[in-house]
């Protein structure tokens, strides 16, 4: 072997090992963070942590029931606001795929998807908090809905596109009216894909904190009224982690654990569902 060839072969091996090591660093960091959260969080969690409200500072015990309930309420609220509009808009994009209107709608949907979450919070503040005069769960729901909407629109359109044209044509050829074809043939065929899209949206909004800071705002009491401020898991993590109280910091680890497990579970579920589709 000539010296030059040896050098080239050495370079080939060298770069492979270098790239592999560099790629493993973020993966290692990911595992490190997950393990840290689980280790710290699991010691905090017991039944009272899940079933009780926060106690005043200095008192032992108490839990984060308000935040768990708040997060569930906010997710339901955002889903109610998003799913109908998202699915119908998705159908529109599919049906008028090549029209100018659809082109503009697609661009706007992409722009909305790119808006930083803190700016989404400002928008919900302008639209809901300012007219109402106070913070509320509703405004938090609106903020989260705006984040979720483009995801639902996009997946609905893409899932409908995946359906073979023959299916639609067969239904139309039988004289089925167009709207019935959509609701009785197209949507049921695409439903699992659309549900995956909705889950993706929920996984995305479950951990959002920034848009809730000045909309849902947080609330130390149990609250089911969406017109009042409402707590949430990500918000309580933020609040407790920057607080000087040791006990609150501990609770933040517990809340992080629950939120992390929930979000990772959703993500794994989405992946399993979409692998099945293929």
């Amino acid at each position: 072997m000539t010296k030059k060839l040896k050098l080239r072969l050495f370079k080939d091996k060298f770069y492979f090992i270098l790239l592999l090591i560099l790629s493993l660093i973020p993966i290692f960091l990911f595992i490190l963070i997950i393990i840290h959260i689980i280790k710290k969080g699991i010691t905090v969690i017991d039944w009272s942590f899940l079933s009780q409200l926060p106690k005043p500072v200095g008192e032992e015990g108490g839990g984060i029931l308000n935040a768990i309930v708040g997060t569930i309420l906010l997710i339901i609220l955002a889903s109610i606001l998003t799913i109908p509009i998202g699915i119908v808009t998705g159908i529109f994009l599919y049906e008028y795929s090549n029209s100018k209107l659809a082109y503009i709608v697609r661009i706007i949907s992409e722009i909305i998807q790119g808006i930083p979450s803190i700016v989404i919070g400002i928008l919900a503040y302008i639209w809901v908090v300012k007219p109402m005069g106070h913070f509320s769960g509703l405004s938090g729901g609106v903020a989260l809905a705006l984040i979720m909407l483009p995801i639902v629109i996009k997946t609905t359109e893409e899932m409908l596109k995946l359906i073979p044209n023959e299916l639609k044509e067969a239904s139309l050829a039988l004289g089925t009216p167009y709207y019935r074809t959509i609701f009785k043939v197209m949507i049921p065929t695409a439903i699992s894909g659309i549900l995956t899209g909705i889950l993706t949206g929920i996984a995305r909004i479950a951990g959002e904190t920034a848009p809730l800071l000045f909309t849902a705002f947080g609330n130390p009491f149990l609250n089911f009224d969406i017109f009042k401020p409402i707590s949430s898991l990500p918000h309580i993590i933020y609040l407790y982690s920057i607080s000087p109280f040791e006990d609150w910091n501990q609770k933040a680890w517990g809340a992080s654990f629950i939120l992390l497990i929930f979000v990772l579970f959703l993500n794994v579920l989405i992946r399993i569902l979409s692998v099945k589709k293929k």
Partner: protein
Amino acid sequence: MIDKFFKNILKLFGFIIIFLGLLIFLSLFSSSLPSIKKFGLKFLFLSDWDPVNEVFGGLPFILGTLITSLLAFIISLPFILSVTIILGVYFTEGFIAEILRHIIDLIAAIPSVIIGFWGLFVFVPIVREVELLLGVTPYGVGIITASILLAFMILPYSASIGKDAMRLVPQDLKEAAFSLGATKWEVIKKIMIPYARSGIIAGMFLSLGRALGETMVVTMVIGNKNSIPQSIFEPGNTIASVIANEFAEAITHLHVSSLIYLGLILFLITMLFNIIAKFMLKKFKI
């Protein structure tokens, strides 16, 4: 009859989304109007931020945002390229490839407040130790801390698009190079990367867009200091973090309006980055 009605309903929803887009822009613009009227475009170059005397200038935050994001991007770059090549060339199928790909994608799924929390309690003390060794003021929190965590968070966006672009390189191109005696690394460097270039760069713009707008991690570890940072080891503030910190407590009309003005600027900057990314992806047709 019903069909026509149904189709009109569909169109109506298209118009609703367009209306929503206009509403977003107009709401931001009209709410920042008091500040725009008072400071105009000079807002971008004024460096004082004094809520008590009602003097507002956005320069420290705009600079803070650009510096943190750019630094995060530079730190992230070697890792982005490595993951792109490893997943796009070496591990394209099989169990290990799938596991690696899913883990990289899952990085984007961790809620940013959790990364911020971990950063505050685990990473900041480490940075403080390093800063002591380096002989700079050991704040722990600061621009460099925020940038490193951001670099980790923005990695999946460009890595996943870059990997797709690498996998799309035509087989015959690669085989032609191999048959001429090129090593794998030479094929990657001279054939695959140039071919997949626009896809890789598009992913990088998406990552940068994420970095610009990321709020919680930055708010928690950047130190929140409202002046132009003198070095990357100092605390600073970004547009997103100053809004997160001050919006709920802002009392005066002008203060709120100036924060929304900053939000509008952030919106426009990220939109620009996302449009560039989209444009480059169209060219590449992924």
